[in-house]
């Protein structure tokens, strides 16, 4: 099998997301979600909640400081604000997913791309991640208060010694994918719209493919568990929540 190939018996279903589209699903404990950048250059904003109690949600700061990282790739986990692990990055062919630069709003999109309403563009209208999140979260009784600092899959933004940010072009190539294994039942909310630091002048978000599949059991030498002693404790605290 080629790198990243999944045995078809493990695949629960596959779905394509057009540029601009949003998505949500409860990814059950033991399942995983693969997001594939079909053409290269995609950016997918993501939020994560404990499906059983969405007051428990992804926490950027706790994720970063527990693992001494500002980027996500294989081995890192997504911490909730309750000291537990929502999802683990078990495989990643991209190498850098952003955690610190947020999403675009309708106002920012209009400033960048000009007007792009439904009346003129029908379903190619300029969607933005803040509105997409509000729509998708509303289906679960969630809203503005629940939009926290998010993950931007396939986006790389560096900071220099003065703290200055730099959006890096070409971070994600065609076929790049990331596998997120659910460590509890996780409400995953995705918005496939351009990253606000992407300097492109026209609105042209790229398609992505989603694959929900059965993950392999968490092994004793699991790459995420062994990444840091903090993660060992995170897995233990998550186990105590269930058992």
């Amino acid at each position, binding site marked *: 099998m080629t790198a990243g190939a999944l045995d078809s018996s493990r695949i629960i279903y596959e779905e394509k997301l057009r540029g601009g589209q949003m998505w949500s699903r409860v990814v059950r404990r033991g399942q995983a979600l693969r997001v594939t950048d079909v053409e290269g250059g995609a950016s997918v904003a993501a939020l994560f909640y404990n499906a059983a109690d969405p007051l428990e949600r992804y926490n950027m700061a706790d994720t*970063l400081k527990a693992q001494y990282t500002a980027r996500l790739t294989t081995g890192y986990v997504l911490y909730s604000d309750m000291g537990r692990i929502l999802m683990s990055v078990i495989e990643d062919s991209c190498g850098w997913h952003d955690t610190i630069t947020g999403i675009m709003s309708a106002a920012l999109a209009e400033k960048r791309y000009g007007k792009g309403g439904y009346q003129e563009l029908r379903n190619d209208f300029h969607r933005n991640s803040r509105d997409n999140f509000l729509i998708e979260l509303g289906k679960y009784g969630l809203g503005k208060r629940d939009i926290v600092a998010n993950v931007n899959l396939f986006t790389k933004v*560096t900071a220099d010694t003065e703290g200055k940010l730099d959006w890096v072009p070409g971070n994600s190539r065609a076929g790049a994918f990331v596998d997120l294994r659910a460590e509890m039942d996780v409400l995953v909310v995705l918005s496939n719209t351009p990253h606000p630091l992407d300097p492109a002048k026209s609105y042209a978000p790229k398609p992505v493919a989603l694959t929900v599949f059965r993950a392999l059991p968490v092994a004793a030498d699991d790459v995420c568990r062994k990444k840091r002693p903090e993660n060992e404790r995170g897995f*233990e605290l998550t186990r105590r929540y269930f058992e």
Partner: protein
Amino acid sequence: MTTLVFTESRLDPAKSRHDEVLPAGKGWSHVVRAGQVFRIVDLEGNQAVDTLFYSAADPSERYSAVDTIREQGGIYLTTGTALLSTEGNVLLQIVADTCGRHDTLGGACAVESNQVRYAIDKKFMHNCRDNFLLELAKYGQGMTKRDLPSNINFFMNVPVTSDGGLSFEDGVSAPGRYVEMRAEQDVLVLISNCPQLNNPCNAYNPTPVRLLVWDAG
């Protein structure tokens, strides 16, 4: 090499309308009105002051760390930084800073994150989120953990390395350093004067800070 720029204020503490010393480990909340100027003084040096801001008129609009850093193109907060809300509005503008750099990535300590970061038996220790939750409960608007987004850590130094690492560096603050900001709308200020004893962010010694408010000049 890093360059820190210091900007001093001309405001006279004797003319402030509010002036109090907040002991180490205590929470605080206060509404600062549009046009008023708010100053935090690091009395003994390298004290982390965990801070959140909300629109007083509608607290569902609140400080957004990621919008603030993205729109200014940099991760550190200092003079000139517009502290942006989740709706893209300016809550406050930093107008003076004798520390030169403040963090907004490191978040606040909590019982649960302390267990992950240090040891599972650290559950008994006082922490910033407890202060935040108690102040929100006192504020009486039904606000809860749902209303605790990523905060600011005034006087803390948390660089991002070129390969994407996060490091907690020695503080760049010192006794008497301060940061001052002007409210651009009525804002609820929520503070926890950090009680963390497990890492060197406070040199293992949390200390008091001084909080001042001046009326619009």
